[in-house]
């Protein structure tokens, strides 16, 4: 029988079992790296560095994981914190990017080769809406879980998801075949 996340965590806690932690990394690496690639706008190298930092922090702080949330939710929270700290260091704006907004309001400016590309449309969303959509719609987190990951009020998450979805739908409809 395959062990659950909780089983592997118990092994790490009891015996400092690094093989068990390795299994947790293997299980969650794709979703964590995927989230960070979305946050960093597909800067794969940066996203992977942040993902590595995420798992390193998770290992060092695994005793603070109390099992109240899913392990993946806890990882997403660490990943998001890593991303925010890095963004602060790089003095990036964590918020609306003017160039993105412009492209968003004028879908015709997008390379025709990228039309119908959902992931590209997702990248055109402002970061707060994109993050909420990725967490809730793509990774299946509840609004409450996403609010904990992003450390923002539940109502803000709901608004961001709603707005993000509407913008995505509008963009995809504008890109669709006439």
């Amino acid at each position, binding site marked *: 029988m395959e062990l659950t996340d909780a089983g592997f*965590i118990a092994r790490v806690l009891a015996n400092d079992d690094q093989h068990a932690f390795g299994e947790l*990394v293997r299980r969650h690496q*794709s979703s964590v790296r*995927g989230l960070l690639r979305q946050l960093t706008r597909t800067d794969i190298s940066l996203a992977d560095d942040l993902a590595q930092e995420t798992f*390193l922090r998770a290992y060092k702080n695994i005793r603070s994981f109390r*099992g109240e949330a899913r392990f993946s939710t806890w990882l997403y929270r660490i990943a998001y914190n890593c991303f925010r700290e890095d963004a602060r260091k790089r003095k990036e704006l964590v918020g609306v990017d003017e160039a993105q907004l412009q492209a968003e309001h004028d879908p015709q400016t997008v390379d025709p080769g990228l039309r119908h590309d959902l992931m590209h449309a997702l990248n055109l969303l402002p970061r707060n809406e994109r993050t909420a959509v990725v967490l809730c*719609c*793509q990774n299946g987190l509840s609004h409450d879980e996403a609010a904990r990951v992003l450390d923002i009020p539940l109502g803000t998450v709901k608004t961001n998801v709603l707005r993000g*979805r509407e913008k995505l*739908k509008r963009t995809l409809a504008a890109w669709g075949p006439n």
Partner: protein
Amino acid sequence: MNAMIDDETLDRQLREAAPYIDDDGFTARVMASLPAAQRDPRWLRAMILLGLAILGSGIAYVLSGGFIREGMIQLSNFPIWLLLVFAFGCGLVVGAFAVIFAIRKTPEVRDLTRLEF
């Protein structure tokens, strides 16, 4: 402008559009960056605790004078069924504490029982 898709379809397409990212050596890099595992000398800790327990018992026996010996003699005069009930009761109490401690320490069991500690 084309008709807009519904939320459910959009969510499904988003999930399907998210590619699975191959490990491609990522886990190995993470594992290489982890600090060395701390090997607790658990056997040493156990031996120290056992030694302290024996030492404590010895000191208590010496300091109590004949109290413990007399207690043992009195206990041996009790009927056997009473001793069995007493031992069983002690076992139940210790077992209950052990179960509570195990649940608190095991996330899987805690999730299973959905108990808040």
